[in-house]
């Protein structure tokens, strides 16, 4: 149901680098799983509304008020790489 190219495409969308072994394994496993999903087409869902949440609560809103965070340091401490108070990441713009 799913070929290796599709697996590669989905992996790219999911920002996952897969090894060739993983690509092969997922091609088989995901095909089996998608085949299992086919049973859902046995059910007639004409006029059935989708359920997005189990228990409906009316839209919850609040004013978006800024508040100072009490422990800024502990957030910065968690970062893999920092430059002063900025999160640092590898080069984004490709020079080519």
């Amino acid at each position: 149901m799913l070929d290796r190219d599709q697996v590669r495409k989905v992996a790219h969308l999911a920002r996952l680098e897969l090894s060739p072994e993983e690509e092969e394994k997922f091609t088989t496993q995901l095909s089996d799983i998608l085949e299992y999903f086919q049973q859902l087409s046995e059910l007639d869902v004409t006029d059935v509304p989708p359920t997005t949440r189990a228990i409906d609560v009316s839209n919850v809103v609040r004013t978006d008020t800024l508040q100072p965070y009490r422990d800024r340091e502990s957030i910065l401490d968690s970062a893999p790489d920092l430059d002063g108070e900025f999160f640092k990441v590898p080069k984004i713009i490709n020079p080519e």
Partner: protein
Amino acid sequence: MASIRELHQQLINNERSAVEITQAALDRIQALEPKLHSFLQVTADQALQQAQQVDAKRAAGEDVGLLAGIPIAIKDNICTRGVRTTCASRILENFVPPYEATVTQKLIDAGAVMVGKTNLDEFAMGGSTETSAFQLTANPWDTSRVPGGSSGGSAAAVAAGECPIAIGSDTGGSIRQPASFCGIVGMKPTYGLVSRYGLVAFASSLDQIGPFARSVEDAAILLGAIAGHDPMDSTSLKVEIPDYTQFLIPDLKGKKVGVIQETFGEGLDPDVEKSVRQAIQQLEDLGAEIHDISCPRFRYGIAAYYIIAPSEASANLARYDGVKYGIRTEDAENLMEMYTRTRAQGFGSEVKRRIMIGTYALSAGYYDAYYLQAQKVRTLIKQDFEQAFNQVDVLVSPTAPTPAFKAGDKSADPLSMYLVDLMTIPVNLAGLPGMSIPCGFSETGLPIGLQLIGNVLREDQVFQAAYAYEQATDWHTRSPQLDTGNEPPKQQKKAGKQRG
């Protein structure tokens, strides 16, 4: 093993201090962990400090509540401020949350003493706790078997008496199934009853936090302490939280109990069927009216769930990108490589598989066929339950089709592992309260669980039926023989090893 009330009484009578109770739990944890590996982290120093505070309060003449000084274990996907929270994943192996989850804050306020963070399937994705990146947890009744999952560490810790109560999370059965495998009480409350603030999100429309305990009463006490509206969780329900212990009435006269026929089909272990049928007979003996109930769309639950949950997971787990917290690959020339390699190195196989399923199901051209279809089937499953609850007060079924299986038995075939959650998944899809209680043992001495399901916010009905049954039986009084017998076959997993 003492209940919450017994421990509270010992404290009030000055027979034992909170520090002594905590130290006893820590000693037992130290003695059993080489066999069980329930905990990813034991927080001994912090626990003893919390216990000292309880003792100091009492010494100053203050009254303390039922949970004060009671040791409790927390599943490691719940954020604890200053205490590493890993979700049993490499990608979060160094993550120390800067904030406290609402649930654990409520427990701290109640004086409960956190003794540690428990093992789980990575990001709570699994039914055996085997997808943890760090260690395998053993079932206390037979250490060659899994404790169930995903909250396997919490279930094993309570079953083994490492602590009297624990917290887990349940997205498709992750509290009830391990409770069944470990012979204890485990409850998933109505969706929205307990705040999810600080619970690391897996599938947000399904995730719910709940209690593990060795008795229905302890579960009722613990649920009462953690339930309640929270402005930090917009799906949190604005409802009054009753004292759940008032529903512990050992009588079922006039109660209508429905038996879900579809859960007694093919694939049900004969020992499980026998125990569950006997339990139903027992409910009838206690005065309940037994009805056969059909939920014809129940069996489509797994397929719907394994589209909906991975879809939500693929979105929720997009945040692990190596930028602000967690690990980052050391091997990236540019930003895209940093994302794809960090995630490749940080996630285990099952998490990757679910991200792939979810990404596929939500991708252009497939959305209607998979995600939308699954959400419509979710509606049909909800309707089956709605019709059932027009006729009965509580529904019953086995919690799991089999007792605990051997470690390694299902890890090679993901689909076979997914089928383990057959009985529990529909309850999450409909947002209903569900509980597993011990209802017998297999011929080989493994615990079997009975699942009780209530209508929306009818935890009272579930507690009453569970309590009445528990008072009439003695399954919950049995404990695994851990100090003698089985030697541990478990080994720690090697760092960074990928498994398939």
